[in-house]
């Protein structure tokens, strides 16, 4: 069944090529283009769900659905695709978000053809990152995702408060490129060191995972790779591009960006930095445990001060990504699998949020909560969805966000964070307290947003608005809510598979020894 991973990757590429040769002259043509994009994203979705069902969580081999194609033999480069428990969750997340994103962007009527070509190119990049087991192609797809996003935001985006969409998209692109290039230097250093120590120059992550690097090498190079990818997570204080980027993007791109692209960074840290440089991770992650508290609290507090809905969700995303980083920093099974699960849950949740905000922005042309008010009266369906989203985001039991944040917090409580270089240790309860306060803060700003925008007296300007009525418009929102609820009520569906992936990381295999040493 290994061809499934090719199907997932190639379906958006085919859509790209197909749409390139379609004409866009009438509304019927535009509809046909949309249908093509939605159709091929459904293919990806079905294939990834099939992968999810067929994935064997107890298997001995680490990667499943493997496809290997020799690419450039002389430098040990091959197109190797496959998934483990971690990337499986991410692939499923991506395909769901893209499938809904394609449907939500029905409202785009200007240059539809270009829009879907770029959107599909972006999908190829994102799927490629999650499916690649080869360092070169990992980087290749990662960089490939950046440029379509630049154009998507720049052409179809909207003004974000005082920033123009061009400013927002340029800032985003430059941050991501800088991070990527810094990481590339680190990746190449790892490649050559692996060749020197292990004797085989190969970009294959499975080969690199066999090599044991010296501690000094790991401690020197872990920060380079980590910081390169942390810019996309985004780790405080490298986060400033992200809320502006979210706010300026058109809704499908916000969904994809907040839902999936931000996860690329955390995924890359897990997959590359943790797997190849476990001792470096052990050495430095204590600091991340400290910095992510800033993410959680600072992001949350700034979100409280925002009046633009997209900025609220944007800053709340960087706050929630703080939990993901906290999960990574714990370096234990609970925390790491919680982090991956949270990446999934948060991806679905923000996709829902941005989809909804985008939907009513098209009608009202404002996202500022002060201009709204009492919207639930005219938009009962959209409002209900929004409230469900807010509840999930604030960590209400029954949704995936609750389950995953709980895992992260439990993981954090159990571990302690050694601040390398200072000789100090941060006890586990400090970040745990930050995380718990973070939940309170997020409940505050979300409830305030609901109160100001959806409840209260109806602003007469909006009395003519029409709710989401047709089934095709409702589908994406309902689907996202269902996913959140199902994975929230039965977390083990996903967590079992994630745990399998996490358990096979090299960081985890050396962990028991260190935990004993600590006691």
């Amino acid at each position: 069944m290994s061809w499934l991973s090719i199907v997932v990757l190639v379906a958006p590429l085919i859509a790209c090529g197909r749409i390139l040769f379609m004409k866009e002259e009438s509304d019927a043509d535009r509809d046909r283009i949309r249908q093509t994009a939605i159709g091929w994203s459904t293919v990806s979705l079905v294939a990834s769900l099939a992968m999810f069902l067929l994935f064997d969580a107890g298997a001995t081999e680490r990667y499943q659905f493997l496809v290997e194609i020799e690419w450039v033999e002389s430098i040990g480069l091959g197109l190797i695709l496959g998934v483990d428990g971690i990337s499986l969750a991410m692939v499923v997340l991506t395909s769901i978000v893209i499938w809904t994103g394609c449907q939500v962007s029905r409202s785009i009527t200007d240059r539809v053809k270009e829009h879907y070509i770029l959107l599909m190119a972006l999908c190829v990049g994102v799927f490629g990152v999650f499916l690649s087991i080869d360092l070169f192609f990992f980087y290749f797809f990662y960089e490939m995702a950046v440029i379509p996003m630049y154009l998507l935001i720049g052409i179809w985006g909207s003004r974000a408060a005082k920033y123009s969409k061009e400013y927002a998209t340029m800032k985003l692109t430059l941050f991501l490129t800088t991070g990527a290039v810094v990481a590339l230097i680190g990746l190449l250093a790892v490649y050559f060191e692996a060749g020197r120590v292990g004797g085989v120059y190969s970009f294959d992550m499975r080969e690199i995972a066999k090599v044991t690097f010296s501690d000094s090498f790991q401690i020197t190079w872990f920060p380079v790779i980590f910081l390169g990818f942390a810019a996309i997570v985004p780790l405080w204080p490298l986060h400033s591009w992200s809320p502006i980027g979210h706010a300026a993007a058109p809704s499908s791109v916000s969904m994809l960006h907040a839902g999936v692209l931000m996860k690329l960074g955390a995924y890359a840290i897990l997959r590359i930095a943790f797997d190849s440089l476990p001792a470096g991770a052990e050495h430095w992650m204590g600091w991340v445990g400290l910095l992510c508290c800033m993410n959680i609290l600072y992001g949350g507090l700034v979100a409280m001060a925002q009046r633009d809905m997209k900025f609220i969700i944007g800053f709340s995303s960087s706050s929630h990504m703080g939990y993901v980083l906290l999960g990574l920093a714990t370096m234990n099974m609970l925390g790491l699998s919680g982090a991956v699960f949270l990446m999934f849950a948060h991806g679905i949740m923000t996709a829902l949020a941005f989809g909804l905000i985008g939907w009513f922005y098209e009608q009202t042309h404002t996202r500022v909560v002060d201009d709204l008010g009492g919207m639930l009266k005219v938009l009962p369906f959209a409002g209900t969805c929004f409230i469900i989203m807010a509840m999930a985001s604030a960590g209400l039991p029954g949704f995936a966000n609750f389950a995953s944040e709980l895992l992260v917090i439990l993981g954090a409580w159990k571990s302690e964070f050694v601040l390398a270089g200072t000789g100090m240790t941060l006890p586990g309860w400090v970040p745990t307290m930050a995380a718990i306060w973070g939940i309170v803060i997020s409940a505050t700003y979300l409830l305030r947003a609901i109160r100001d925008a959806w409840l209260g007296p109806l602003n007469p300007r909006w009395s003519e608005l029409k709710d989401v009525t047709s089934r095709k418009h409702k589908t994406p929102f309902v689907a996202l809510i269902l996913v959140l609820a199902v994975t929230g009520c039965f977390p083990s569906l996903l967590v079992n598979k994630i745990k399998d992936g996490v358990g096979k990381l090299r960081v985890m295999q050396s962990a028991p020894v260190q935990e004993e040493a600590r006691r």
Partner: protein
Amino acid sequence: MNEWNIGLAMPEWILAISALVALFLDARTPYHRKEGVGNAVWIGVIVATLWSIMQGFGLDGKEYAFRGRYGLDAFSVLFKVIFGITAMFVMAMSDTWLKRVDRGHGEFRLLTIFATMGMFFVASVEDFATLFVALELITVSFYCLTAFKRNDVRSIEAGIKYIVLGALASAFLLLGIAFIYGATGSLLLRDLASSGAADQIGHAGGALLQFGVLLTLVGLGFKIAAVPFQVWTPDVYEGAASPVTAFLSMGSKAAGFVLLLKVVRACLGPMADSGLAAASSWGALIALLAGLTILYGNLGAMWQGNLKRLLGYSSIGHAGYLLMGVMAFNHAGFTAILYYLMAYLFTVLGVFAVVVLVNGLTKSHRVDDYAGLGRTNPFLALVLTCGLLSLAGVPPLAGFFGKFLIFRAVIAKGTVVAYSLAAVGSLGVVVSMYYYLCVVKRIYMHEAPENGPMKTISGISRPMMAVLWICLIGIFVLGFFVQPFMSLAEQAASALLAG
């Protein structure tokens, strides 16, 4: 090795004969009927390129002609093909461009083929005398080509700048060659490589030789537009006609790199293998130049409002990346340079093809005047965007793999100098991303002003359309289906290292 074997130089003979035929035709026809000249030149370049390809298939190791002063191996064949394709693309562009000029059609084509012939010779250079003559053939042709628009002050200015600085650089080169000859008693590159010159260069006794090599690098540094010999670049790029700029940025730069690689290989190459102390100081010098070139080019390009000036600065930046490969000093580095140049061929010529076409419409090279290109000319916008993004090094485009190989070759060194150079290089990548995207922003995100000159361009000639398509496809193919081109580059690099 001591035979004349003149048949080996058949591509050059073909070019020379067709140039003479063209010259004869040019003298015999009135100024408004120069199609015959054009045809002679086209046929000459096409046949010469095909012949080079045929030679490439039948090649076994290295063959010599003209008593060892002319050599043919995989490296020279690869470059002859690159130069041939460059010349064809440039000729397609100049056919379009010449329609806007009322005189000098014959001379323009003649100068193009002379420069091409110089480039073909450069690829086969085996001694310093041939090197100098071939290089001057290119440079002198370019002196005339840059000053070709004789009613345009900027073109004249560009020509004068180029001629003054170019003559200075040639003088340095000649002096360097004299010093090298004085130190070793031979003009042959392979004598230099085998006579223990490398050993000498590491010792105090080799001062004469070292000085000679340094002066040679000055002369070649001018050709490739490396800091600190780069000042002419933006002005000449802006002033010269667009097809000439395209030829300059690809052909002349590649020719400079061919010679640089050959000289570096002959003088310093064996030293890198034997690991002499001097190698690291030369490596550090080249690394320093590479770093400065990258910074100068990319930081300078950020502020440009004229697309051709911007491309001029960016071409300085690209020279810096190519120098990073020279700094790596080994097979991986040379492979990277060759791949980078192959990628650069399609990328930069695609960009200039669009520039030529748009300039015909708007009569301007201002970046702002590209606003609305995405709506009025989607295909041209696509080619230009892919070209610029490939220059910036974005996957899956050709420029990305070139840059990747360069970084790979440098980081393989594993020294502090190498890592710092890689860091500077990555800074350059980010900066270049900014200014290329600023152009892309104009193309897609800004609308053309009402009543502005920007409208749909029709009547693009067939050869021009072919250039656009080949460049577009080339950019994607070299970015993704890497293996065949990679093995070409590897073979050529091996041939270069084998000497």
